[in-house]
């Protein structure tokens, strides 16, 4: 009956977070083992590393140096041991620490992914709510047509069209690359300058189209459902304006599926923005992973995929925590 006292609520929350973090360690261990075995099966990096006409001595020396002569499980545990001390290994191709390599590329992908999901959410949700509020209006039908396009048109093709239109024909925006960045906390960001932004716009738009379509669909379905409830009728009977009802009642009530999809889309874009990054020569991690697969750069692949698992785990945790913020009924259930 009584609401939980704040300290008890926080305790329950802390327990939940710790439990989830322990689970996530398990997920990442499993992920690292799978990736390690998978990558091991792809091929022998030695063939790429040294020229075919190298002497047998050089060959064996290199194999030993990288520990490739050991059995798989020994290699794996050696890798895990190094991982615990924060060492992901060295890139076979670039010969620098993998962590350094990935972290240098990560901010580019991070801002690209974030920009695209934010565009998708901030444009898609209002459009979707409108389409759900007036399902029969011509404008709503137009919005739904756009969302069908967003789902069905391939990303690379839209990317090429965007470049063709805005970079080649109109010449308004650069066709690719990242442009200038501003250093904050030792990391370069491009969204902080106007010129940097011009480089970000096209790839972000390209990536956001699918998310936009998704957000429109979700927001529309949720709104249509909520508009028929007595909650909306009661709010109307109290004299609330339609705008207030949509903003304060409906938006809150449909937010849980929206936040879920926002989180999943953010994580998957972070991990797999490969196509867009390639088309716009955006120097992010997506391009890095493709390059490392072609050159069989084993440590980079493993580190990257473990990192991706980490992103998914963390973002899902944040999404779960936000449920409790968005729906008070879940707080009680969790604390019980």
């Amino acid at each position, binding site marked *: 009956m009584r*609401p939980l006292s704040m300290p008890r609520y926080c305790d329950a929350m802390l327990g939940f977070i710790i439990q989830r973090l322990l689970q996530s360690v398990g997920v990442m261990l499993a992920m690292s083992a799978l990736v390690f075995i998978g990558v091991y099966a792809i091929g022998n990096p030695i063939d790429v590393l040294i020229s075919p006409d190298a002497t047998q001595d050089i060959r064996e020396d290199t194999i030993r140096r990288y520990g490739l002569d050991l059995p798989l499980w020994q290699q794996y545990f050696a890798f895990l041991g190094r991982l615990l001390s924060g060492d992901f290994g060295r890139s076979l191709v670039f010969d620098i620490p993998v962590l350094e390599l990935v972290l240098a590329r990560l901010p580019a992908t991070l801002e690209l992914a974030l920009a695209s999901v934010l565009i998708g959410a901030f444009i898609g949700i209002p459009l979707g709510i409108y389409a759900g509020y007036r399902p029969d209006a011509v404008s709503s039908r137009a919005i739904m047509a756009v969302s069908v396009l967003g789902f069905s048109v391939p990303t690379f093709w839209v990317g090429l069209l965007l470049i063709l239109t805005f970079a080649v024909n109109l010449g308004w925006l650069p066709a690719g690359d990242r442009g200038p960045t501003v250093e904050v906390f030792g990391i370069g960001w491009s969204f902080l300058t106007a010129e940097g932004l011009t480089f970000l716009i096209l790839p972000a738009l390209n990536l956001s189209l699918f998310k936009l379509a998704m957000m429109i669909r979700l927001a529309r379905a949720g709104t249509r459902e909520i508009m028929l409830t*007595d909650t909306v009728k*009661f709010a109307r*009977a*109290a*004299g*609330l304006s339609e705008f207030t009802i949509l903003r304060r009642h409906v938006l809150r009530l449909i937010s849980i599926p929206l936040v879920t999809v926002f989180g999943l889309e953010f994580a998957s874009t972070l991990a797999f923005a490969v196509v867009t990054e390639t088309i716009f020569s955006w120097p992010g991690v997506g391009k890095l992973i493709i390059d490392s697969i072609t050159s069989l750069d084993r440590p980079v692949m493993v580190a990257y995929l473990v990192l991706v698992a980490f992103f998914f785990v963390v973002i899902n945790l944040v999404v779960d925590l936000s449920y409790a913020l968005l729906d008070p009924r879940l707080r*009680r259930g969790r604390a019980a």
Partner: protein
Amino acid sequence: MSLLEVRDLRTHFFTRAGVVRAVEGVSFSLQRGEILGLVGESGSGKSVTGFSLIGLVDPPGRIVSGSIRFDGQELVGLAQGDMRRLRGKRIAMVFQDPAATLNPVLTIGQQMALAVRAHGQASEAAARDLAARTLTRVGIPDAAARLDAYPHEFSGGMRQRVAIATALLHGPDLIIADEPTTALDVSIQAQILAEMQKLARETGTALVWISHDLATVSSLADRVLVMYAGRIVESGAVGEVLRDPRHHYTRGLLDSLPATALPGARLNQIPGTTPSLLALPPGCPFAPRCPRADAVCATDPPDVVTGDRLVRCHHPLGVAA
């Protein structure tokens, strides 16, 4: 002048299956501070009548003709914005299921503040203060502290009190209560009924109490309208209608009340079911279920017999033919 004057109200729903005449020529009036019971089975048009009064008939339904004069102002055809300014301010409504009407993800205080601010600026503190005072009036203890609670932290009866408080915020002239006690426990029902009656008397608020339950209405209302198939079949002062019903349908409703039956005896029931509003018989809509129906009833719709009381029947009870 009466507070509410409804003349020949018709509210129809234009569905794919045809036109549903949910409210078909309803007329009544309501004085300030009066409590009016609107009684009928499901599908009799009583709720649609209520929603018509507050201008919240959902598409595909709309008021096709008639007049609703509220305090001298015509509500039929009133602009959306003007209607919205009346809602919650001068005409309020309470619904059946408080678990469905309150928003589960907003606190009681937030929801009531929205209703306060729907009719003019109010500071956060002023809105909370008004909300807390109104909650106290409907019998919620420790109201100021409960403002930060969510609906699921209240019992069903308390939730309905919150909904009633929300309706009372601006001191409306008229409250439409659509079966507000149906979803509650019997003991809570009685409390809420007594509370509503007291509040209406104290504030001079007129009340339209929609219910399928004659017993509830008899304990609360001054006057009662009995609806059947979108029409008012009988109306009059509560005591008279209950003691001496003129319409066979009202008689049937009274006979089916468990309280009037002898212990152990089978309950009386009205044979048949409510007719489909899509295919009403040409004559009296109650004729197929009526014990007194004859050839005239099947073909000619009955006129309103007035005199001391309104009844729509060819062969009213208790009147020497």
